């Protein structure tokens, strides 16, 4: 991990210079014959050259080989090795380790939030209930993040990603509003959930009513039991029942005639790694109740009733495919 403080010996340095020269894309014939002469001049030159040119030879050969039957491997490897977030994530996980050992994490989980602005988030597979300063209760689905911004005139919950269910405490002076990328949901009652996806957000009203305002200004009020989707411009009622839609808060995925792709999307926040469903499998219609906290069991029970095959590579890659595709 430390930068090697050692000095490079002159022959190794010369070998590196040669490699750079020959590999630059603009080496000339004279360069090559000068290089041959250098190699022949001393046995140590040849040894140093073998060491330097053999550096990283094996991992790079492996990636080239993979590239030859599946294009994009080298690029993906380079991106992975140069992702700045990875370093940031690393710092975060190192910091998380520290917090865990100090018990700060447990503290934060169990105590109501005293501060006015807070960032709450959940990890993969983690569902979390938090009591807010005004007595409202917030449940975060896995892989979700929300900023709590309470002021004298408004209780604002900024949903950064994922899904929340909110049980509001009454406060006529300060409306409670959930803001997503696509608009906002204002509580006219007590219990509702909001889910933010890439292209749109969804609302499920469990009790009383919620007023939805899309970014465009379109507005509509939804009653208990109803569900809706909104993107920046439009609001549309959905067919699903609110109870089904918000079943995640109880750890269940309740599905009635939905595409498998959506089921897999709902399981994703509960499963580490890369979960891919083929387009053919994604289109299958699914019924059932599945345990969110055990996504592998949910996938297995899907495989029992659906013409799908589940393949795993290592601990982190799971592919869901239509059986018809595999033969």
């Amino acid at each position: 991990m430390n930068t090697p403080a050692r000095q490079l010996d002159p022959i190794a340095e010369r070998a590196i210079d040669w490699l750079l020269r020959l590999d630059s894309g603009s080496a000339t014939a004279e360069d090559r014959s000068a290089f041959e002469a250098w190699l022949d001049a001393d046995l140590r030159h040849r040894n140093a050259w073998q060491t330097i040119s053999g550096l990283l030879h094996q991992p790079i050969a492996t990636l080239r080989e993979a590239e030859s039957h599946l294009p994009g491997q080298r690029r993906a490897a380079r991106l992975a090795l140069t992702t700045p977030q990875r370093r940031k994530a690393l710092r975060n996980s190192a910091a998380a380790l520290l917090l865990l050992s100090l018990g700060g994490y447990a503290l934060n989980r169990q105590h109501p939030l005293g501060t006015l602005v807070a960032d709450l988030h959940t990890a993969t597979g983690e569902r979390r209930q938090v009591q807010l300063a005004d007595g409202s209760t917030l449940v975060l689905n896995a892989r979700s993040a929300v900023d709590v911004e309470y002021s004298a005139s408004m209780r604002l919950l900024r949903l950064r990603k994922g899904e929340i269910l909110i049980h509001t405490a009454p406060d006529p002076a300060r409306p409670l509003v959930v803001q997503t990328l696509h608009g906002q949901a204002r509580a006219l009652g007590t219990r509702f959930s909001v889910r933010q996806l890439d292209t749109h957000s969804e609302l499920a009203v469990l009790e009383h009513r919620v007023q939805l305002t899309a970014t465009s200004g379109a507005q509509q009020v939804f009653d208990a039991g109803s569900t809706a989707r909104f993107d920046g411009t439009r609001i549309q009622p959905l067919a699903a029942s609110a109870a089904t839609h918000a079943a995640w808060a109880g750890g269940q995925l309740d599905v009635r005639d939905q595409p498998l792709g959506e089921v897999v999307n709902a399981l994703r926040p509960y499963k580490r790694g890369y979960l891919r469903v083929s387009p053919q499998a994604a289109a299958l219609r699914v019924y059932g109740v599945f345990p969110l906290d055990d996504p592998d069991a949910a996938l297995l029970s899907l495989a029992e009733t659906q013409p799908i095959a589940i393949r795993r590579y290592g601990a982190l890659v799971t592919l869901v495919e239509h059986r018809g595709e595999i033969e």
Partner: protein
Amino acid sequence: MHTPPPSLRQTADLLYRDHHQWLRGWLSHKVGCTHQGADLAQDTFVRVLGSNELGRLDEPRAFLMTLAQRVLYSFWRRRNLENAWLEALAQEPENHAPSAEDYALVRDAIETLDRLLGDLPLRARKAFLMNRLEDMTHVEIARSLGVSLATIERDIKLAFTHCYLASLDAIPNGITEAPSSTRP
């Protein structure tokens, strides 16, 4: 290369006997998985054998925990790397996961590169990988990264020097086996 003298070996065996289960429990709790916890405990004991502090052990659990923290750190590092790789793969237009055999090979290759590139600055990493892995010329890399040709050449030379020195550092640690008599 250097096998621990018998007394150290005995100390290691005692450590293993008395604290292995505790350590496995602690690590399993940290990573939330008993199988991985067991693997990491094994890795920690491999480091125990390579440690030169084994002779003077007042606080065996503190000592084990220090080593285990390092094992955990590299575990998280590998996991983050793997996640970044899978994300990069998912972005590829040809959205295929590699075959099972390729998967392990490619992942290991990326880990090896990550280890050898170490804490090399990001731009030097990029330049080096574009050149060595993706066969881009220095001129193409300079254009792509928006810096001068001389900067790219310096970056790549730095990367080679770094890898060369890192490979020299990697060799002396010849200990790869955990105490075989106490393996589960």
